[in-house]
């Protein structure tokens, strides 16, 4: 049993779970971004026919969950567990969206790292023999996030150049015990890291140290060469956070080079006026469910390290002047079980 432990934070999965299906449904702005072709569905109205932003976000979750099952041709009773979370208080987007699923449910909170957190837990459930099929799903919505964390939409304020744009949509994956890959072969669970950044309009700078800490731990635990992966994708540091991460890694002698990228940078075009890039639980999740999964399936990418990062702040902690603790979880996804 003990040889599943690799170093302090990394775990090797002996029966690596397979990502057998993914799905992503996003809003209009994401549908105009560079990764548009990889989403299952783009909705052109943020309310999606619902009365409130919160109801709309739940609908994104509900429809994405249904899409994962249909993409996998899996009956509803074939799912053993759902692990889900989102940004809204008490994770209501997930629980309301999944209340009709009839499947045992674990709610998690990791802010924008939620997809990494849920996939890590799901992978261990499957490796441990506790489940054959686990759905990991998350969501975010620009309008509901603005309302909860910032200002009413119609307030005439300017966004800081370091601010990021919350992705509207939901995305998730189905992890299975059987399948042909891609496989989750290792996970590195992150620690809560806080380097004292207080500016909630500069989340990339707050989260970069957490991402650096987890990536450092991953290479330290596994002893893998720093150029092992075809791509290392963090999310969602945005353009400023990504530069900071590169600096932090370099000063620890980890040089990943050009294959280091970020979901928040990839999902939007600079012309889309999103300042430092995308953010929100659905950002990294939809980049994985769309572009990354497609690339793995086609063999364009063979082994990637996905490092979703989350800023664990609340409106209350911000108003009380607290700094922003952050976490990042690394997931190794490979087409062939190796390493």
């Amino acid at each position, binding site marked *: 049993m003990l040889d599943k432990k690799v170093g302090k934070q990394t775990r090797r999965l002996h029966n690596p779970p397979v990502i057998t299906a993914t799905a992503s449904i996003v809003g209009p702005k994401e549908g105009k971004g560079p990764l548009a072709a990889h989403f299952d569905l783009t909705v052109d109205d943020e309310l999606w026919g619902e009365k409130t*932003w919160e109801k709309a976000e739940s609908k994104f979750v509900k429809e994405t969950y249904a899409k994962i099952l249909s993409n996998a041709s899996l009956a509803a009773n074939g799912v053993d567990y759902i692990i889900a979370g989102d940004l809204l208080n008490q994770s209501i987007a997930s629980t309301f969206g999944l209340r009709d699923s009839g499947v045992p449910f674990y709610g998690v909170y990791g802010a924008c790292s939620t997809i990494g957190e849920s996939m890590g837990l799901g992978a261990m459930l499957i490796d441990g023999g506790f489940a054959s099929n686990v759905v990991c799903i998350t969501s975010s919505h620009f309008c509901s996030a603005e309302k909860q964390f910032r200002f009413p*939409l*119609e307030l*005439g304020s300017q966004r800081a150049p370091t601010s990021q744009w919350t992705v509207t949509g939901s995305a998730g994956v189905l992890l299975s015990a059987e399948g042909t890959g891609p496989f989750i072969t290792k996970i590195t669970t992150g620690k809560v890291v806080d380097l*004292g*950044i207080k500016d909630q309009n500069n989340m990339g*700078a707050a989260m970069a140290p957490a991402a*650096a*800490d987890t990536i450092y731990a991953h290479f330290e635990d596994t002893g893998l060469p720093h150029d092992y992966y075809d791509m290392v994708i963090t999310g969602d540091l945005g353009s400023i956070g990504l530069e900071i991460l590169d600096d*932090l890694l370099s000063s620890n002698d980890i040089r990943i080079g050009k294959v280091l990228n970020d979901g928040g940078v990839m999902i939007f075009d600079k012309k889309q006026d999103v300042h430092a890039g995308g953010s929100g639980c659905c950002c990294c999740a939809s980049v994985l469910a769309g572009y990354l999964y497609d690339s793995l399936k086609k063999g364009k990418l063979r082994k990637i390290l996905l490092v979703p990062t989350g800023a664990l702040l609340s409106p209350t902690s911000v108003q009380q002047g607290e700094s922003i603790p952050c976490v990042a979880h690394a997931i190794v996804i490979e087409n062939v079980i190796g390493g």
Partner: protein
Amino acid sequence: MQQVMTKDEYKKYVDKKSPNSSLIRNIPKAFLVGGLICVVGQFFTNTFKGMGMEKDAVSSLTSIVMISLGILFTALNLYDDLGKFAGAGSIVPITGFANSIASPAMEYKSEGLVLGIGAKMFLIAGPVLVHGIGASIIVGIIYYLVTT
């Protein structure tokens, strides 16, 4: 990970790394829009004066008209676009105060008339009234003590 920076060093490093808002681009826009909103206010002041109203009525009526305009533009989903362009140019005038009342009222309508619109309407303007009226009471008391 090796700690390469203390919190203070990291803050300084981040400040250097993060782009600042461009004052050279933002100030002219704030000046222009703020100035023009005041010209509109001056137009109403001149008009009401021309109608022979007394001074206090003119200033009250001008406020009422400008606040109504700010609320109307908010309702038509235009004031946020103006704010994105003008920044303080549309926040500082009294129309911005009106926007700060109408925008949460609209946003929180989904939570009902009492705890939604009623409670959240003064989310941003409430602190303004509390501190403004509070300050006026303080200076009023001082003025009373000095003049008697």
